[in-house]
């Protein structure tokens, strides 16, 4: 019974590692490595969009 449980435990753990643990590790590495530059890009594009909107509004007013 204990052997069967151990076999199931190893099998399920292996499956869980492939389906959940490994992708989670990849995602966390991606966030750590690329997160700051992605956030910077997002802020830059958001600011650029804001500037465009402002200048369009100013042009309309004029």
């Amino acid at each position: 019974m204990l052997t069967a449980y151990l076999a199931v435990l190893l099998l399920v753990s292996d499956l869980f590692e492939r389906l959940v643990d490994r992708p989670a590790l990849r995602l966390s590495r991606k966030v750590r490595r690329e997160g700051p530059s992605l956030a910077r890009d997002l802020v830059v594009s958001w600011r650029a969009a804001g500037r465009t909107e402002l200048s369009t509004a100013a042009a309309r007013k004029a």
Partner: protein
Amino acid sequence: MADQRLLEGKADRLHHLDGLRGVAALVVAFSHFLTCFYPACYFGPVDRASPAWAHFATLPQGSARDLATLVSSTPLFVAVNGSFAVYIFFVLSGYVLAAANRRIGSLAFTAAARYLRLTLPCGAAILLTGLLIGTGAMALPDIAGTVGHGWVAKWYQAPLGWPRIGYEAVAGLYVGGATNINPVLWTMQRELIGSLMIFSVAWSVSGGRRRLLAYAALAALILACGLEPSRYLAFVAGAVLFELKAGEQRIGALAAALMLGTGLLLGGAPFFAPEPGDLYGPLAAPLAHFGEDARLFLWLAGSILVVGTALVSAPVRSFFSLAPCRYLGRISFSLYLLHFPLMASLLARPMSAPASTIPSSSARC
């Protein structure tokens, strides 16, 4: 060297440390098997922390009682001491996090990445446990009366709703410091806080010597605060081992045997608090002033020695780099998260059947 390769991002994992983590995860699984089905082998024939368990002492002398005494009260306990294995996890985390985060660009993103790394697998394991609870598969409460120890009776007695399970999966496991969904999750709050401590030092202090001083200051702060010092000191100890370049040092076979033997001897300190007359009593007495149970410091010291040996001894490195250990290391986090709910359902179910009820003296060891 592997540590340097990890540092440079060329190596994915440190295989010998993975192997050690895998073996430690198996010890945790085995310790929960004992605590659930043969608690006398873990808590001792007379659990000093739980007078209710004293009834074991009334059982006649014999192989069951002798075995329980042998496993729970001698250094052999190291083979099933899940709490000691958890200290090994903490020291390993300190080492690996210090190695992989030598230079931190953004503390916020590093912390967020760590949160995701821990929460996604833990959350998935909690949801899986919720499914087992929801389908009525948890049979552990059925055997609690037969086993007769309070620790077994703690799990899956009260119904848990999905909102509660969802909360536990994303935040609850950190907020309360423990959940009643899975006993292993108490370590996650410590993992997250310990990781943040290592990240903070790595982010704010550069240079080996200055960083060592910063870790010494952090250790002093942890001791001064007195909030679970042994656990957070384990993270600091792991990071210090990295800063001392332990992975690049080598020692002889005799020194390694002495180091490993002492580490395992300390890791074999029993679950119950040592008393002056016990084998571990004289070791524990000077540690009683640090605001925490002395045995925790014995396990801490033992785990530092064991991890240290796995770093500096070539034969020990080779052993933990063997394929079975590496395999266990690869699945260690999953094994750690899943063994208890699977045991409480798959293994407890046949044991709760009337025909195979655990006999009172033999099955309790």
